[in-house]
């Protein structure tokens, strides 16, 4: 079937591919796979940060997960954060992108203004939002009062603390998603929109039936990178709430950090990291299965 020169060409192509992958793989092996392998190994042991004594535990660390209420809570918090933040941030970004995909005056200014939060260090951003959320004198509550809405305790209340962090995440990351979506919007041939407009299709229906299907590959892409960016929540939790109040904002990444670095319990932290890996991996697979097959590739 594949013989002679054709086979040689295949081999050459594969060889080139491995050559191109080699630089990445070397560094991934050293700084990602090796830690992951060690993490799997650690998860079967009692390993303590700072100590060279290691004891075999078998599956005990994994059994601990079952009875560790805080683990389940942090898993639920992580899921809640991810499932709320990503759709909201993307919806927000999409609306912004659609609004900014025009030749209106001052568009570049708007773009910068919506994009800049991406560049603020998480630490500083977290601190600022602690102030913005302050129940008494914080501007957010002032604004709520202005519209006659009830004031909230935000970060001080276990019911609203996570919401507060989610709102801040949307502020911080919509701009980034917006820029990517904007690039995709610019590639939609304008005649499609014009045709639909002539047919009397409303703006909303144009968005739903034309824009979104056409940029679906990019949307899909943004969902994936949104999933990956949801790791950033660690920074906010670390700065703003340290997981509190009453563990309402304790998410898996933070819990891993706590176990590994504060409690020195490397074995358990590794176990948690492995679980998180499976969790995110599963989520990405899910997204890939649900959306990946349905996306329309422009002109193909």
């Amino acid at each position, binding site marked *: *079937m594949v013989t002679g*020169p*054709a086979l040689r*060409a295949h081999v050459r192509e594969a060889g080139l591919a491995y050559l191109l992958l080699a630089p990445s793989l070397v560094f991934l092996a050293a700084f990602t796979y090796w830690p992951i392998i060690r993490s799997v190994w650690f998860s079967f042991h009692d390993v303590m940060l700072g100590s060279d004594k290691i004891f075999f535990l078998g599956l005990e660390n994994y059994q601990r997960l079952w009875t560790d209420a805080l683990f389940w809570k942090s898993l639920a918090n992580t899921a809640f954060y991810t499932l709320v933040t990503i759709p909201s941030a993307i919806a927000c970004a999409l609306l912004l992108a659609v609004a900014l995909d025009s030749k209106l005056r001052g568009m570049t200014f708007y773009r910068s203004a919506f994009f800049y939060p991406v560049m603020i260090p998480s630490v500083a951003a977290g601190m600022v939002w602690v102030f913005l959320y302050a129940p008494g004198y914080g501007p957010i509550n002032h604004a709520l009062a202005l519209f006659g809405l009830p004031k909230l305790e935000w970060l001080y209340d276990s019911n609203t603390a996570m919401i507060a962090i989610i709102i801040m995440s949307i502020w911080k990351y919509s701009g980034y998603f917006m820029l990517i979506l904007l690039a995709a919007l610019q590639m939609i041939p304008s005649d499609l929109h014009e045709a639909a407009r002539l047919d009397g299709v409303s703006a909303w229906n144009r968005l739903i039936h034309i824009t979104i299907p056409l940029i679906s590959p990019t949307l899909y892409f943004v969902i994936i990178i949104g999933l990956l960016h949801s790791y950033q929540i660690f920074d906010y939790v670390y700065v703003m709430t340290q997981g509190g109040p009453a563990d309402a904002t304790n998410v898996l990444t933070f819990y891993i950090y706590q176990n590994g670095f504060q409690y020195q319990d490397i074995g358990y932290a590794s176990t948690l990291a492995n679980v998180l890996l499976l969790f995110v991996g599963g989520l990405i697979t899910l997204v890939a299965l649900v959306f990946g097959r349905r996306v329309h590739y422009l002109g193909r």
Partner: protein
Amino acid sequence: MAEVVLQGVSKSYQGRPTVHGVDLAVADREFMVLVGPSGCGKSTTLRMVAGLEEITAGRLLIDGRDVTHAEPQKRDIAMVFQSYALYPHMTAYRNMAFGLLKTSKLPKAEIDRRIGEAAEILHITHLLERKPNALSGGERQRVAIGRALVRQPKVFLFDEPLSNLDAKLRTHMRGELKRLHKELGLTVIYVTHDQIEAMTLGTRVAILSEGRLQQVGAPMDLYMRPANTFVATFIGSPEMSLLRCALRPNGAGSVVHHPRFDTHIPGALERAEPGDILLGVRPEEVTLSPPETPAMARGTVERTELIGSEALAEIRMGDDRLMARTPVMQAPDVGAEVGLSFDMARVRLFDAATGRALARL
């Protein structure tokens, strides 16, 4: 001298064959058109010639040199793509110069000269500093052709280059291409799905279907003497009507029997034994007459259609339908009964089972 020879060139993807042993010789300065419906393997064949696809089996010779497995840039060819494939980030000039810079060590002055010359021929001198997105479709087309021209390759390959243009521009560009071919003496292999384009452009046309070469020949040859029913119906618009008939030998000739008529064909046929055949009649080979005059057969006019100075009439004859071409003034009324006569010297006979043409000896 530039001659391209395909010897049993085949292609399979993951074991599934898509092109079956194409044998084709393209002579120097010939304008060879590969035509066929979409998915027939014509583009794949062209891409194999270009070196963009591996040739799974067979040989490819350009100027007698075996280039079956040569890298594309070593084949001394240039190609114009359907979407033009102009580099969006380069000016028209850069687009044209890029290949020269990569493959040749030509001095800058020579490159300039070649591009200037090509631009003049193509009337794009004023566009050279523009980027593709500032060019219209026709202009992009010219730049794409210019990019091929400046390479001065042995063979030009065109992959449906006109299909993205509007009808008027397409006709114009067709003329341009013809002019270029003649003036510059190019050797061209040209892929299209449009038979009119094929007929007007090609010095010879190769028709492909389902990965097999059906027939190669000069356009009129194909038109007049299609090798099989596929070619017969593919070439010509409106297409040739095929009437199912029975063939009976009769003396020096044969009798073609149709439920509505019998007719005699003079001279010997490739096949003498009786059996089912298809009678191929082109619209212009049918003469319509008023019902009262004598005719070969009779039918009912189903539909008429004006096309400029002529009219087409669709006529029902029992279960068969056939198209006839008539002067506008003589176009029959719909529903009318008409008499039909065929130009029996020109009609073709096909084996009903294999679709192959029965040669008249």
